[in-house]
């Protein structure tokens, strides 16, 4: 079952849910972030975060601390905190970058967040007590181009970053002022700030921007989606084996783990797909929606053409996609459950809709669904 939430015709470029999932923050390809709260089956606007000068590129709402971080093409990021009067108060974060910020994510413990940017830098930001503000440390080398996506490892230290230099990298973001020294993981044992733990090339054929990265729930595997229509998974517990699936589909823009070995990815195909991760290969699962094509006789008669022109005012018979989303999906977010054990997830798209996908009911409806 899918629930469609319509927010108009403007594309929704990014979105994030509050911890209790009753509120939603989204940006409609503008410099503003609108907050909505659900009241029954409707959405009421409860806030407007309009401090950015240029397009907002990413939003993340921390579930436990209830803080929202937004970043934008204007090279800034703001942390928003709800005060006693129910007003969202902003704090500027000094990213110290000279290009657009592209993506932002809170760490699992919400004491840090990472911002990727076109300046080929990742800014790791944390709250400095003495300065009473957010300061950033830079991870620079050896990134050669824009950072497009970031995901945190469950240990709150390691981050994965995908970039337009066709590489995926795992870095340490250890900040000694904020946290204790981490214990070794499958990715390595030495983790000073900015240390490159591992670097992966998207393709041996040399291309494909990396659009999205995601650690598996236990952090031992790292999945990414490349613009060469591929999904890859690196298994740190298995000698850094990289399993790559070159799909027959259009490229994916966002992905996450819905089961310990199943990935849900969505992008230019306008419908989410599942991918099953086996011990040595990634296989295509299935689309999460059936192509709702009505039985057409193939050749449409001239009479039908004119009938439709008269009735619906359209020249062609089929311009609608046979999926719920009509345009490419920009982002996937987990709604119910958590990574690896997802009950529902949402997709926001350039068609102005946010669709919530319920895995349980979908599995019941769709016989071919592979999760």
């Amino acid at each position, binding site marked *: 079952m899918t629930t469609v939430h319509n927010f108009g015709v403007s594309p929704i470029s990014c979105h994030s849910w509050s911890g209790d999932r009753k509120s939603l923050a989204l940006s409609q390809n503008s410099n503003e972030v609108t907050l909505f709260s659900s009241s029954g089956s409707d959405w009421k606007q409860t806030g407007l975060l309009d401090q950015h000068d240029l397009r907002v590129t990413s939003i993340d709402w921390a579930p436990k601390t209830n803080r929202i971080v937004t970043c934008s093409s204007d090279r800034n990021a703001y942390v928003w905190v709800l005060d006693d009067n129910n007003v969202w108060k902003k704090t500027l974060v000094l990213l110290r970058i000279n290009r657009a910020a592209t993506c932002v994510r809170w760490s699992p413990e919400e004491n840090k967040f990472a911002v990727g940017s076109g300046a080929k830098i990742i800014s790791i930001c944390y709250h400095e007590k003495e300065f009473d503000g957010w300061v950033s440390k830079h991870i620079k080398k050896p990134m050669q181009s824009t950072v497009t996506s970031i995901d945190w490892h469950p240990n709150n230290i390691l981050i994965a970053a995908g970039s337009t*230099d066709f590489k995926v990298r795992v870095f340490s973001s250890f900040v000694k002022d904020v946290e204790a020294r981490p214990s070794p993981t499958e990715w390595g044992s030495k983790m000073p700030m900015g240390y490159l733990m591992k670097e992966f090339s998207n393709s041996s*054929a*040399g291309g*494909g921007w990396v659009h999205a990265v995601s650690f598996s729930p236990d952090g031992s595997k790292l999945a990414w989606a*490349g613009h060469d*229509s591929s999904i890859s998974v690196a298994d740190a517990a298995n000698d850094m084996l990289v399993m790559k699936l*070159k799909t027959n*589909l259009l490229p994916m823009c966002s992905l996450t783990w819905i089961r310990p070995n199943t990935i849900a990815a969505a992008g230019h195909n306008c419908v989410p797909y599942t991918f099953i991760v086996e011990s040595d290969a990634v296989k295509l699962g299935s689309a999460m929606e059936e192509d709702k094509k009505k039985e057409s006789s193939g050749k449409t008669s001239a009479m039908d053409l004119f009938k439709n022109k008269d009735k619906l005012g359209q020249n062609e018979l089929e311009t609608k996609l046979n999926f719920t989303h009509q345009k490419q999906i920009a982002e996937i977010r987990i709604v119910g459950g958590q990574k690896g054990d997802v009950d529902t997830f949402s997709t926001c798209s350039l068609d102005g809709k946010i669709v919530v996908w319920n895995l349980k009911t979908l599995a019941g409806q769709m016989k071919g669904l592979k999760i």
Partner: protein
Amino acid sequence: QAYNCLIHFYKRYLQKMAKNTSSNVFRTLDVDQYNEDNYKEDNDSTDPAALGPNDTLITSLLAANKPVEALTHLLSGATLGIKDQAARTASLTLAMRVLMAIKVSQIDDAVAQLDNESRDVLMKFIYRGFEVPNEGSSAHLLVWHEKVFTVAGVGSIVRVLTDKKRV
């Protein structure tokens, strides 16, 4: 006479200056290569000795009227990322010979017995073949394109565009 001397030197000076300002050699210097921030291509690990598909084997298979086998050998050979332009062109010419030699009725089977990697390479050859058409090649290539697309989907076309190692 001193005056004439002066005029002479002045004229020579102007000539020299004129020569200097008309010299554009400095404009041919590519200053961007010295920029530290430049994106550096990965040093190709392509074996320089791999100069393309096995010419002799494939030609002999074509002569022996075994074009589908020739296709398999062509596509599993070293066809991607050939640096030498002459070798690249030769590779394309050979590929076109193989593709033209396979009849329309044989194409479905030929595509079915290839693996995914080979189908991606095939799609790359098809598009390069479109770039340099000759006498009816495009029509035949269109059939190839349709058949490969049915099996390999949009993804194979996306990879024609995004893969940096070209055919």
